[in-house]
């Protein structure tokens, strides 16, 4: 019941009028920016990070939780009406959602996605409340060797799960790790790869990398390859309300998807992409109307959308309790914590009770705000979707450059931003996933610190990683994950 008391205390923080206001602002802005085609949750959070520079940490992080949820919801609206999934986790929704919209059932599709997100988000937040203290107790037993092994595990799974090719995933990860090395070494004060540029001594901010890859890279890509493609938006015809049959078909899908999404979010499996597809497959198999799949089955929207939200909440478990981001968006949230000198992890639960539990309580509040706000305001979000592409990308780039410039008020950050933009362009064109790079940048320096701490404690004896049971197990699992697909291909009967 300790968790319940802590949560009640959290509500007393989250429900303070100013914090409630920041939550509301966050949800609204997050939805507004998240609705913009081509802007996924990671970019939304990165671009809006600069808004919170002058806020107190609690208010800022509550606003961020709102932005995070709002961006997820906004993205699904775009996916259903425009069929342009802003991120891989929305692809499964697009399969049925856009078909429903084409068939004149955009209203129920948006409704099941909004209510499903609320149901899944709320259940997942309850699970987060219950699971987090348990993981914190476990994490308190972790030393540097265990943390390092856990981070290596996260690196490998994220790099091999995201994208089609493990080699390209690892390449992305190592590019991110390299960018993470730039700046002053936290252990010795040695400058590395900064070439005497003062702006680089601080290290490259995750906002610059994320905005460069996601916004500038995307804008360059769309300009070069798709500036003449015109997208057609489906109109919302008829009622927004779901019929009794829609309800009957939606709620089991929401619950099943929550059960799939939350656990996947908590492990480093690249966020919400896999559970949304699993949920889609499960609904297709269990549906009493399998013939409707591919032509707009409501379960095919309800499931993936709920799975997406449950996973997005699940991602907060390793982020808050261990300080390990398992998706690009979580990596940027971790950057937001670091901007305030806070390092998420078990100690944060002790030292910053107000902040952590206020943040968790604000997730409950954010879910309710989203539900109240979104369906009535759907008319506004549709207007946002009608912004023509030329003005849309112009506006996105003004916001993106502002996010980078406000860090140091220096044009060097803008040049760095453009370099990452070129990198993002090439990665988009040649199918290299960008998520591992963002995670590598933020997690790389933390992993290095833990690695060197572990070796300091063991007086330079590297066997420490293999003699501690938790660390050895994690490294063994990691090695297995690398070798297993290769072995599988080798041992498979060569009939195909």
């Amino acid at each position, binding site marked *: 019941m300790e968790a319940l008391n802590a949560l009640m205390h959290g509500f007393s923080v989250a429900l303070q009028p100013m914090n409630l206001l920041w939550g509301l602002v966050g949800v609204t802005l997050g939805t507004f920016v998240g609705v913009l085609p081509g802007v996924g949750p990671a970019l939304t959070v990165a671009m809006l990070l600069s808004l919170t520079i002058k806020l107190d940490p609690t208010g800022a992080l509550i606003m961020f939780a709102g932005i995070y949820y709002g961006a997820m919801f906004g993205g699904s609206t775009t996916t259903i009406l425009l069929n342009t999934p802003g991120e891989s986790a929305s692809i499964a929704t697009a399969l049925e959602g856009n078909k429903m919209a084409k068939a004149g059932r955009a209203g129920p599709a948006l409704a099941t996605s909004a209510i499903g997100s609320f149901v899944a988000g709320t259940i997942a937040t309850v699970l987060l409340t219950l699971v987090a203290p348990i993981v914190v107790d476990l994490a308190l037993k972790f030393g540097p060797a265990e943390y390092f092994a856990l981070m290596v595990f996260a690196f490998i799974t994220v790099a091999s799960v995201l994208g089609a090719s493990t080699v390209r995933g690892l390449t992305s990860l190592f590019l991110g790790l390299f960018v993470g090395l730039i700046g002053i070494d936290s252990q010795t004060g040695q400058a590395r790869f900064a070439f005497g540029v003062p702006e680089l001594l601080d290290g490259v901010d995750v906002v610059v990398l994320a905005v460069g890859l996601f916004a500038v890279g995307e804008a360059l890509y769309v300009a070069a390859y798709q500036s003449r493609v015109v997208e057609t938006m489906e109109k919302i015809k008829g009622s927004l309300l779901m019929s009794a049959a829609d309800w009957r078909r939606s709620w089991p899908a929401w619950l099943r998807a929550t059960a799939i999404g939350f656990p996947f979010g908590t492990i480093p499996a690249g966020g919400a992409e896999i559970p949304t597809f699993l949920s889609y497959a499960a609904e297709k198999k269990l549906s009493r109307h399998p013939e409707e799949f591919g032509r707009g089955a409501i379960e095919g929207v309800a499931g993936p959308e709920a799975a997406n939200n449950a996973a997005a909440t699940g991602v907060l478990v390793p982020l808050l309790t261990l300080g390990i981001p398992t998706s690009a968006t979580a990596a940027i949230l971790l950057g937001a914590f670091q901007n305030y000198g806070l390092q998420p992890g078990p100690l944060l639960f002790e030292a910053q009770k107000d902040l952590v539990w206020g943040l968790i309580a604000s997730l409950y509040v954010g879910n309710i705000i989203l539900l109240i706000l979104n369906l009535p305001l759907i008319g506004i979000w549709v207007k946002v979707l009608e912004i023509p592409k030329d003005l849309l990308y112009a506006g996105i780039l003004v916001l993106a450059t502002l996010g980078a*410039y406000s860090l140091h008020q220096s044009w060097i950050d803008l040049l760095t931003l453009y370099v990452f933009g070129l990198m993002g362009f090439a990665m988009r064109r*040649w199918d290299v996933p960008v998520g591992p790079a963002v995670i590598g940048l933020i997690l790389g320096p933390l992993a290095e610190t833990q690695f060197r701490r572990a070796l300091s404690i063991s007086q330079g004896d590297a066997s420490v990683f293999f003699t501690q049971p938790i660390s050895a197990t994690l490294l063994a699992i990691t090695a297995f994950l690398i070798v297993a697909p290769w072995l599988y291909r080798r041992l498979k009967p060569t009939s195909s």
Partner: protein
Amino acid sequence: MVRSRAEVALSLGIVALGLGVAAVTATLPSEGGYAGIGPNFIPAVVAAGIIVLGAWLAFEAFSGGWRKAPAHDAAFAPAPFLWVSAGLFAHMVLIGWAGFVVAGTALFACVARGFGSRRVARDVAIALVFSLAIYFFFVQLLNVNLPAGWLAPVLGGAGI
């Protein structure tokens, strides 16, 4: 068999980056107190990783192309790409002395042009309103400083 020269160039570029990282790493000190490793250890690991991955990609590129790459038919349009780039460079140069509003307007207009707009007056008008709105939102409400630049006399003492 080489399917894509771009893939070959990118793979070799990654190898070159790895070699560059290795070269800089060689200049870093290696003493590290109790840990026995210094600030050059992880950079060496990362350099090795980048070189190996680049070489692997090069091998793939030379033997039929990068694996599992989706088909990509659209042709590269240089003009829009250059307009967007020009906007970003103009913004970079202008923001320090002409101020946020002027730089933002230039960026906005160039990007809109890159995405096919021919209505320059409309774009500049929208850009100006948009940049001004953001400027006041940040400076007045969020208390974040942005350079006023040329428009300092008009914008008052709001910025720096």
